[in-house]
């Protein structure tokens, strides 16, 4: 770690230690409250409600610890099982969900030892820091102000002014030790918390199953919606035009002897209608799976896309092979959506797309030098893309501070096949 990074860690760890002590004081009360809720839970009407409230309070506290820990570099994920669909707060099913989730009990078990460890370690770290500060500031100050001799460090009490002034270097050294130790004690107590607050292996698996169920449902929904759209487009578009082509040719057949001129006119009409049908089909195909994607793969298709944008867009790509078709298609549409948003909202003057595949993960970056301030929560397009990527365990992140630049990052674990020749 760089010196700057160390300093930043120390400076954030010191207030964190104070905070940890304050929060630690809350824990015993929370445990008592929760246990009361648990004991009273069989009482009709009041009991389940109470347990609901207390559990929510405990989870809020545990989540706070997880957030603080993740921010401090010791990531802790949420272990809770998703609530059963449609279960009302306080209902039997809801109660069972709370009681049977091991994370509920692990949270409760953590409250006291977690607080104890956090408070003891934080107090030690803070005490060193405060003692260092006293030596560096207070002792010399007293000496200068009124020649007050107090004890400090090695000299207890200080016999003369020189020994008194020596409190300054000693204090600085102790302060340095304190500042170095604080991030370490923080990491230690957070690691201890992690033992209780992180999902267990079986909880991880259960969470994974829950997530897969959700993304699978999303994927099936999205696919069904897509098929419905295709059906509607075909029905209202190409199909309708082909019916008209058939009818017009039939009419021309009847007229060909009696009125060849009119028949010719009808045939020209039929040809025009068949052209329109083809145009519609081409649009539809482009929306399902762009031909250039089939022909050139992701790299070529993104280049073709970039070429058509009103904002000059640089494509930097290094993909030594082809991706699986479904992945290719999901990523293509994700990039297309991100680029469309960029041209619509960003006022960018230039943009770039980066494609890279390392250690079984595809990294895609779409960036621009525009206004920034893009909110991924607002654009339904981006949400749809995220859902589609989720089906492949992919993730999307948007960084867009006001003033720019906006960078959308996609990550997707996937294999790369050897290049087609």
């Amino acid at each position: 770690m760089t010196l700057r990074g160390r300093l930043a860690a120390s400076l954030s760890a010191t207030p964190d230690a104070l905070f940890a002590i304050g929060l630690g004081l809350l824990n015993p009360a929370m445990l008592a409250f929760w246990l009361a809720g648990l004991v009273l839970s069989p009482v009709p009407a009041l009991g389940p409600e109470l347990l609901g409230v207390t559990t929510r309070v405990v989870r809020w506290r545990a989540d706070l610890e997880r957030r603080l820990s993740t921010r401090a570099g010791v990531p802790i994920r949420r272990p809770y099982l998703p609530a059963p669909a449609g279960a009302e707060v306080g209902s039997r099913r809801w109660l069972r969900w709370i009681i049977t989730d091991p994370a509920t009990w692990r949270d409760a078990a953590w409250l006291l030892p977690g607080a104890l460890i956090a408070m003891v370690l934080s107090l030690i770290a803070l005490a060193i820091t405060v003692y260092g500060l006293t030596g560096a500031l207070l002792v010399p100050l007293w000496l200068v102000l009124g020649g007050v001799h107090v004890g400090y460090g090695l000299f207890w009490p200080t016999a003369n002014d020189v020994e008194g002034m020596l409190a300054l270097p000693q204090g600085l050294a102790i302060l340095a030790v304190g500042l170095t130790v604080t991030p370490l004690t923080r990491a230690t107590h957070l690691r201890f918390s992690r033992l209780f607050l992180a999902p267990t292996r079986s909880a991880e698996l259960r969470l994974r199953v829950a997530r897969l169920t959700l993304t699978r449902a999303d994927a099936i929904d999205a696919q069904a919606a897509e098929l419905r759209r295709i059906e509607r487009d075909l029905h209202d578009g190409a199909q309708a035009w082909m019916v008209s082509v058939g009818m017009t040719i039939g009419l021309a057949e009847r007229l060909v002897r009696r009125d060849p001129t009119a028949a010719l006119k009808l045939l020209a009409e039929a040809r025009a209608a068949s052209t329109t049908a083809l145009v519609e089909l081409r649009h539809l195909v482009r929306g399902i799976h762009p031909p250039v994607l089939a022909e050139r793969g992701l790299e070529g298709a993104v280049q073709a896309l970039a070429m058509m944008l009103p904002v000059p867009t640089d494509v930097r790509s290094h993909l030594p092979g082809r991706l699986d078709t479904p992945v290719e298609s999901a990523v293509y549409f994700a990039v297309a959506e991100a680029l469309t948003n960029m041209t619509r909202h960003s006022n960018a003057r230039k943009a770039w797309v980066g494609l890279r595949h390392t250690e079984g993960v595809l990294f895609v970056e779409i960036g621009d030098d525009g206004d920034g301030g893009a909110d991924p929560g607002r654009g339904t397009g981006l949400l749809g893309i995220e859902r589609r990527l989720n089906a492949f365990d992919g993730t999307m992140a948007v960084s867009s501070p006001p003033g720019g630049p906006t960078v959308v990052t996609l990550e997707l674990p996937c294999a790369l096949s050897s290049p087609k020749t």
Partner: protein
Amino acid sequence: MLLRDGLTRLLQAFDFDVVEAVDNGPDLLPALLRHRPDVAIVDVRLPPTQTDEGLKAAIAARAEIPGLPVLVLSQHVEPLYARELLTDHAGGVGYLLKERVADVEQFVATVHQVASGGTAFDPEVVAQMMARRKPLAGLTAREHEVLRHIAEGRSNAAIAARLFITEKVVSKHINNIFAKLGMPPSDDDNRRVLAVLMFLDA
């Protein structure tokens, strides 16, 4: 394949000599190099991979035989491919949607146009390229329109007929375009190709 047989019959009906018709990608390039045809008509997508083998073979053949006239047909048009076909700055390039074959006379005219070193790009490619960026610097709307027709492979006479102006006015517009694009007087055909390239590459 449906289109190959149909095209062979159509071209023969218009007094073309079809030296060979191949049905797959790997055979295409050797055939092009062996026959050195006056014009080759190539589908972008060919068996066995059904990717862009036809296009690649056409570009490779033109690398071997500069200016070998090639008319590329496809179910869809992709401006990226148009640009790739144009990068060698030689004429004799066409890129059309397959359905344009339906207008038989226009199609045969286009084949002749490409065979004689001209360019012919599908109105849809041209429209797509037009839609994306601001027009070429300094060109008036009318000049732009003329340039679009040049890209689509029309002769001066055809442009005049389309725009309801005289051929003289058309050539005046074309000279203005060349001047504004900074092209010195030279072989007119070559300048037409270069102007189209600048237009599609803007």
